């Protein structure tokens, strides 16, 4: 905002477009929203994942019964969603680390976001094709 505001004035209401701020509504915000949501999703998955893995201490049969329910196409889509979240969170996490630690990080943060998206498409695409072929083929 170019107009000076005194302490008493409340700041002018944000325009819907988010113009006038460096952050709101722009790539920076959406990459952060995505990072937040994927982080929570992975965390919740991990809580359940450690519980289902713990079935190896109950009996081989119990473990195999539960793992067996993963081996079909709709669970494969769920696994793919999880892996999509992991890949995004991982690559965007590296971008955050570079923005913070690399001298030129702040200058290239948008380029790096593009790199994250491209790497995501390539790595997730390869995973998805192979995973679905294995699930449907076997």
């Amino acid at each position, binding site marked *: 905002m170019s107009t000076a505001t005194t302490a008493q004035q409340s700041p002018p209401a944000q325009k819907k477009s988010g113009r006038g701020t460096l952050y709101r509504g722009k790539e920076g915000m959406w990459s952060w929203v995505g990072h*937040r949501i994927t*982080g*929570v999703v*992975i*965390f919740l998955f*991990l*809580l359940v994942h*450690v*519980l289902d*893995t*713990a079935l*190896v*201490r109950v*009996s*081989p*049969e119990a*473990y*195999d019964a539960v*793992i067996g329910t*993963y*081996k079909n196409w709709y669970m*494969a889509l769920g*696994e793919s969603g999880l*892996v999509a979240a*992991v890949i995004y969170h*991982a690559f965007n*996490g*590296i971008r*955050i*680390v570079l923005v*913070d*630690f690399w001298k030129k990080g702040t200058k290239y943060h948008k380029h790096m976001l593009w790199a994250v998206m491209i790497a995501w498409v390539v790595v997730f695409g390869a*995973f998805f094709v*192979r*995973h679905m072929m*294995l*699930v449907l083929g*076997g």
Partner: protein
Amino acid sequence: MSSQQLNIAAPRSGDIDPKYLRQSASSSSNREMFKWVFMRISGPILLVLIFVHLFSNLMVGDGVHGLNFGLVAGKWASPLWQIWDLTMLWLAMIHGTIGVGTIIDDYTSKDRTRVGFKVALYLASVAIIVLGTLVIFTFEPCMTDAAGNLMDNSPSFCFNQ
């Protein structure tokens, strides 16, 4: 510049009246710094640990069809995979707990709500870390039932002993 040196004490360089020092503030900002650094160190390590975990369980051999008790038994027979999974468990759980803790701080305004969510988060995290650690260290590939017989679905190598 003239040869004369101006010598003005830098603010906050140690000679502050103790009544202006807030112990709580400085130790809590050390904790924030620790969390910030921890997120940035654990993240890249987790990338390697988790990508290899996903690759070895879903992309090689029969993929998800190959997963069963015998596969886990085979992996955990090797100390490499035990340490791999243990590190992944601890780093991912601490990283995730710090991350979710930040999110709770951001979205709760009342102290009571915040403390309630945090206590639940920490209890769940400790329980999962302890459980996961015990599972790795007490794993028994050839389990027997009360009568001493090998259980169903035991890996084949248990039968040749």
